[in-house]
């Protein structure tokens, strides 16, 4: 903790439009910019999934206008098999990097971390601004690959070598498409490293007086833990992408082995290691799962506590469990490689910590459920989405037990079972965390309330829709339905096509339900009822400042923190909550006895 006066915000309130809304140094504006980027990205990603789902259900159906996206990839508005894989790659990349990483971590974290620790801004605002714009450039570079001659890469978001490293001989988009993909991700890594640097330093050095580490709200802890993961994980992915680019443009042989023959062509590379890419990628890739989900855990805990009107069963254990997830996430990455051909003893070594990581996950879930039990939860859109997060995390997590064991994973790895697992536990759960955060913090971010009725409708349609989409995936996987296929022509797969049609209809309906959210977001931003400073009667610092917060977050008087973050239903208190900034002093009832 540090005396804030030593490093107060050095940049005054901006006056020009450019400085205020475009190249802003204000962490709140940067947070909103990240949110806007994630919003654009999620709708792009969702539309791509619609196109794929329609193709899987009705393969010959011509999607009007699809040829505008790619004349060669979708002649006559029906996509080619290669184009299906290209859209799948872009869907995964956009969703993982530009939605699940940017929204819960970079967007909400940027806006609320400095406020929750009681700081005027992040310590390195120029780095913070660069972080967003670098990420934005990364998004443009990725999207640009739609418009190059062969289109985007078809290698999947994991870009396994050697097919990702040999150029166009491996298929359309495997040349320039991969170079653009790898460049985009390398640039994205720079943005996230700059962001993580700011998050860590803000948490350690910018806390206001009285704000000890254990007095930080759970959301702030989650962002801090995530930033440590981001700092180490993205620092490994970036060099991996650089080596991949060099295999393309400089003729190096990092990932391509000798005497490789692809599509009848002998490749000039020699001695490269295809497994090396997987090791480097998954050393980032598994922590990335937690980079996507841990902020959601923090946000959901924060939302639930406020609506339960009581703290979690154990604040510290929840923090330690999130920290354990972060540490263990680096030891389990090899469970993504059980079928890669690596030494079976390595599989065993990675299987054990994978089973161990379920312990902190289970502790977190039990703390949520135990705290919810018997509470009089205030039902609103934010708390419903928080409950939905818990539900999705459990449902998706349970299937992880099966996949953690190599003998079972070998059977299920290339099937829709895995698709169902990671979509529930990483995709939908994280999305529900984003929605919970949006409904909860929207009033503070914009000064307007969102429509609660539309919010609840949005929740129920999304909740039911998500289960209708992703639970059948598990059934398909157990039935042996392979993933990444664009058409199902084998006898045993043809019988499963009706399930795919059901999933497609559910995906379209659930997708359209998101338009309710979009409408609510835009309408409320301009026409929503004015929001009071503390609409949910919360206790943390963001609720002790004006709505929306002023440029320096707290006006002329910096907050002083007296209490732990969640003082609800305190015996003898004047109200059912005591804000962190309240100097009210109560006697510990246990001491009185």
């Amino acid at each position, binding site marked *: 903790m540090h005396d804030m006066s030593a490093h107060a915000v050095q940049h005054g309130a901006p006056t020009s439009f450019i400085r205020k809304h475009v190249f802003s140094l204000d962490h709140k504006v940067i947070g909103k910019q990240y949110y806007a980027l994630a919003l654009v990205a999620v709708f792009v990603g969702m539309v791509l999934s619609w196109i794929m789902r329609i193709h899987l259900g009705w393969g010959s159906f011509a999607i009007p206008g699809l040829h505008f996206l790619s004349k060669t990839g979708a002649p006559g508005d029906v996509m080619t098999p290669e184009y299906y894989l290209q859209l799948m790659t872009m869907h995964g990349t956009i969703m993982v990097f530009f939605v699940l990483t940017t929204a819960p971590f970079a967007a909400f974290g940027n806006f609320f971390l400095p406020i929750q620790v009681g700081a005027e801004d992040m310590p390195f605002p120029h780095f913070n601004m660069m972080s967003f714009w670098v990420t934005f450039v990364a998004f443009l570079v990725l999207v640009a690959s739609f418009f190059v001659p062969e289109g985007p890469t078809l290698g999947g978001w994991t870009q396994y070598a050697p097919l990702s490293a040999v150029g166009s001989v491996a298929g359309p988009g495997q040349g320039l498409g991969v170079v653009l993909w790898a460049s985009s991700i390398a640039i994205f890594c720079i943005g996230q490293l700059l962001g993580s640097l700011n998050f860590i330093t803000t948490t350690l050095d910018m806390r206001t007086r009285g704000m000890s580490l254990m007095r930080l709200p759970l959301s702030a802890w989650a962002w801090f833990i995530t930033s440590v993961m981001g700092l180490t994980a993205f620092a490994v992915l970036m060099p991996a992408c650089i080596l991949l680019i060099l295999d393309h443009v400089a003729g190096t042989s990092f990932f391509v082995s000798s005497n490789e023959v692809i599509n009848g062509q002998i490749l000039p590379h020699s*001695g490269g290691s295809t497994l090396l890419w997987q090791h480097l990628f998954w050393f980032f890739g598994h922590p990335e799962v937690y980079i996507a989900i841990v902020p959601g855990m923090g946000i959901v805990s924060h939302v639930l506590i406020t609506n339960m009107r009581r703290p979690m069963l154990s604040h510290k254990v929840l923090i330690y469990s999130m920290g354990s997830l972060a540490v263990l996430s680096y030891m389990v990455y090899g469970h993504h490689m059980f079928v890669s051909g690596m030494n079976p003893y390595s599989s065993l070594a990675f299987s054990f910590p994978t089973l161990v990581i379920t312990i902190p996950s289970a502790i977190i879930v039990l703390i949520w459920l135990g705290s919810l039990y018997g509470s009089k939860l205030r039902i609103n859109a934010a708390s419903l989405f928080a409950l939905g997060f818990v539900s999705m995390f459990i449902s998706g997590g349970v299937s992880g037990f099966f996949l953690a064991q190599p003998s079972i994973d070998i059977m299920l790895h290339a099937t829709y079972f895995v698709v169902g697992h990671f979509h529930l536990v990483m995709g939908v759960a994280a999305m529900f965390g984003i929605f919970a955060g949006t409904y909860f913090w929207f009033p503070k971010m914009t000064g307007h309330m969102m429509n609660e009725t539309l919010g609840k409708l949005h929740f129920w349609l999304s909740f039911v829709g998500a289960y209708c989409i992703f639970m059948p995936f598990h059934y398909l996987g157990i039935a042996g339905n392979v993933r990444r296929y664009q058409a199902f022509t084998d006898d045993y797969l043809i019988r499963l096509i009706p399930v795919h049609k059901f999933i497609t209809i559910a995906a379209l309906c659930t997708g359209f339900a998101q338009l309710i959210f979009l409408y609510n977001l835009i309408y409320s931003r301009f026409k929503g009822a004015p929001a009071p400073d503390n609409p949910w009667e919360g206790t943390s610092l963001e609720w002790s400042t004006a709505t929306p917060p002023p440029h320096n977050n707290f006006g002329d008087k910096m907050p002083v923190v007296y209490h732990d973050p969640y003082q609800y239903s305190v015996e003898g208190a004047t109200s059912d909550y005591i804000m962190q900034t309240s100097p009210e002093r109560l006697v*510990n009832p246990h001491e009185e006895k």
Partner: protein
Amino acid sequence: MATTVHEPPKIELDRLPSRGSGNGWRNLVPADGDMRRVEDHSPMPASTGIWVGLASITMTFAAFTSALIVRQGSAPDWQHITLPPILYLNTLVILASSFTLEFGRRQVAAFMGGLRGQITNPARWLYVTLFLGILFVAGQTFAWVQLRAEGLKLSTNVSYSFFYVLTIAHAVHLLGGLGGMTRVIGKLKRSVLRRSTLDAAARYWHFMGALWLYLLLLLWMKL
């Protein structure tokens, strides 16, 4: 924590945040340049930030290292590189720059501490450090040009690939250090330099020196 309330800390309630560069000198080193006598020991963001940044750079080079080790052992095509002799001269240059930077730090500390009359140009050693840094990058460039002239390119053999990747990545990071050093000198000229900024720049620079020694050893050894 649950439902108990702690004793309020004894702190003033009406403290106003300070703004602008009025506090720019607050954290400066004392007259004799003895850093241990600085009263405010609490970390500044620049101090924490540089450690965080160095951790990130360490991870990046650890990833390159693991790639090198795996790649070297994965196939028999590794032809160990003969390092250009100029690299050893460059090593001396970057090591010397660390010494000149330390001289510079003491000069700046003494200057800030009130010995302005006795020290006419406190940035002198920082300029020397800057020059040595540029000399190092020029020396590295000479090594790359020399290798290319001999027909030894990125694609010649994977050991050369790693040589180029590691040395260029290091040089890029060192250019960042040169930028930081230029910024320190600029702030010193404008009298807005903080001790924590100078310390952070120095830590980064020394780290670059240590990193170069590590890379030289890594490229020289046949694992």
